[in-house]
């Protein structure tokens, strides 16, 4: 089985159980999102997948290779971008990539051209000769991505890659990740920015208090939909809400408001479609009708929040423990 396979992976730091019995798969050719609240154990899990931390129990396979038994073989396949991005302050962007390439046994002659290629790929070609200490956070993030990609890894582990990036760079990153996945690579990406993650991921792994939660068992719950009538504006919101409420047969107080639009809760997509039909039949001119939350956000917010004991640790503490 290629891609990433984790079976019953656990890791504790003293009394803190950071990851417990986590099992999941990330398939080649797909982008898998690792989603969870702060302190869920995402960074710890990624460190174990990256062959830097040994699990207390369970097995990990990186394209069939056990990173605990044969870290060198696993590292040849792994491209890892950590959340805390360390750059060699006085080295230039080009030197950073060349040094990394040399440590991956890329011959010196190829390393320079590879560095040029990687810096162009992440959009840092204009800053090749700038020392890392003058780069902004977003630029360092791009440098970290270039460093993770230098040896053409089959498996990518990206911890919060979009943080610090401007909107244009985020779009660029999204396209890059899609392209890397379409080459048949396995991409595992963790992020807190769920709306963004949603646009790039094929699959999602939910991590809560160190355990993987099956997205299938996430309770459906009521999802909010945003409804704006033609010409909708804050000053006539009360009137709009009243019309919508009477058409749907609900109390006007049960509706929310959002920048000139009405928020309506529906239990399912079927219920939403049915509601829209009734609005149209009541001759109400609907300009916008869309979920107010992304599906991922909805699933995330409905994750079982009953955290087991000892699990309330921030991401930073747990990665550092």
């Amino acid at each position, binding site marked *: 089985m290629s891609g990433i396979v984790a079976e019953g992976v656990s890791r504790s730091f003293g009394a803190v159980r950071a990851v417990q019995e986590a099992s999941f798969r990330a398939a080649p050719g797909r982008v898998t999102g690792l989603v969870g609240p702060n302190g869920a154990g995402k960074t710890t899990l990624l460190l174990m997948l990256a062959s*830097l931390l040994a699990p207390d129990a369970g097995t990990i396979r990186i394209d069939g290779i056990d990173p605990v038994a044969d870290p060198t073989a696993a590292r040849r396949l792994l491209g890892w971008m950590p959340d805390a991005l*360390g750059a060699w302050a006085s080295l230039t962007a080009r030197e950073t990539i060349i*040094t990394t390439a040399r*440590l991956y046994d890329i011959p010196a002659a190829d390393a320079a051209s590879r560095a040029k290629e990687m810096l162009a790929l992440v959009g840092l070609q204009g800053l090749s000769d700038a020392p890392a200490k003058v780069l902004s956070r977003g630029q360092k993030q791009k440098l970290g991505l270039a*460093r993770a990609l230098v040896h053409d890894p089959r498996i990518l582990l990206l911890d919060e890659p979009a943080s610090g990036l401007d909107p244009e760079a985020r779009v660029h990153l999204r396209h890059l990740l899609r392209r890397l996945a379409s080459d048949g690579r396995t991409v595992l990406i963790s992020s807190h920015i769920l709306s963004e993650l949603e646009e790039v991921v094929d699959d999602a792994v939910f991590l809560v208090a160190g355990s993987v939660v099956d997205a299938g068992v996430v309770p459906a719950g009521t999802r909010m939909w945003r409804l704006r009538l033609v010409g909708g504006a804050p000053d006539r919101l009360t009137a709009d809400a009243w019309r919508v409420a009477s058409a749907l047969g609900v109390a006007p107080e049960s509706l929310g408001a959002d920048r000139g639009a009405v928020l309506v809760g529906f239990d399912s997509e079927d219920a939403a479609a049915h509601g829209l039909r009734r609005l149209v039949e009541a001759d109400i001119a609907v300009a916008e009708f869309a979920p107010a939350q992304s599906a991922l956000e909805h699933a995330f917010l409905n994750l079982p929040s009953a955290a087991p004991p000892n699990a309330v640790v921030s991401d930073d503490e747990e990665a550092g423990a």
Partner: protein
Amino acid sequence: MSISHIGTVARLELTQRLRSVGWYVLLGIFAVVLLGVTLLSFAVFSGQDAPGAGVYSVVVNLVLLLVVLVSPTLSGNAINGDREAATLAPVQMTMASTGDIMLGKLIAAVATGGAFLAVALPFLAVALLGGGVPPATFAVSVLVLAAEIVVVAAIGVGFSGIVARPLFSIAATYLTVAALVIGTLIAFGLGGAAIRTESVSYQRPWDEQTGEPVCDEWEEFPYEVPRYDLVWGLLAANPFIVLADATPVEFDPNGYPVDLFGQLKVGVRAAQHAPIEQRWDACSPNGQQGPTPEQMVADSVPSWFVGLGIQVLLAGGLFAGAWARTRTPARRLPPGTRIA
């Protein structure tokens, strides 16, 4: 283990250091100090036939002093400093093994200490031109100095891999080096003075009428002597003593050493001798002849290889401990250690 990886890691360390202005300022100050010390030493040893020997020994000792004083700062955060800056894990993720990283960092630390020796080279050359330094003295002293540079570097890199916080690992390195340099001296001084034995000093009684000594009688005065001969071994691990003890010493025609190595060596070797009976004979005009420094050294045993052996064990143990702690995938982590 790969030469190419070790070289890349060492180059990475050194490149970052070479690009800081402070480093050049430090070397510049060192050059100025060396200039002053060399000039003063020529003045001190100008009375000798070949003043170069004395000047040479002073410059070599000064380089060792600088290595002992500055190296811990430069090597004492080699590993945990990278952890704090989150630059260690990206290297561990590559094909570079733990051994490649450890040796690369050690080589960089040794090269940093070697830079002080490189700055001192012109001054050593001037001292050699001053004459009086035999090839054996030159060769042995430089080799021992190099060994001490490696020992201090390995202690620093070792602590940086074992202790989580750079501040504490640098402090631990300094304390260890200070224990060798100053601690051995304190232990020797206090130990020798604490262990005292009864000794007797003999003098001729004086005739109260004539004021002449009575030449067929001895008067006995018991007193306590410190027994440095029982604790001299404590000095063996001192880097300066190792350097002086290992270096072949030249004596002048009166049996006195011509350079600083020799003076230190005579001091340490003299401590090996049990206190000799004190007999002051007023009836014998020539008085008592003690052994010359040359004779004292000839009647003593060298200790430098024991001292160097202790240092190598200490540095090697710390380095091996750091190696084990830096291995990935990490199993046990000391509290407060960051991985990435």
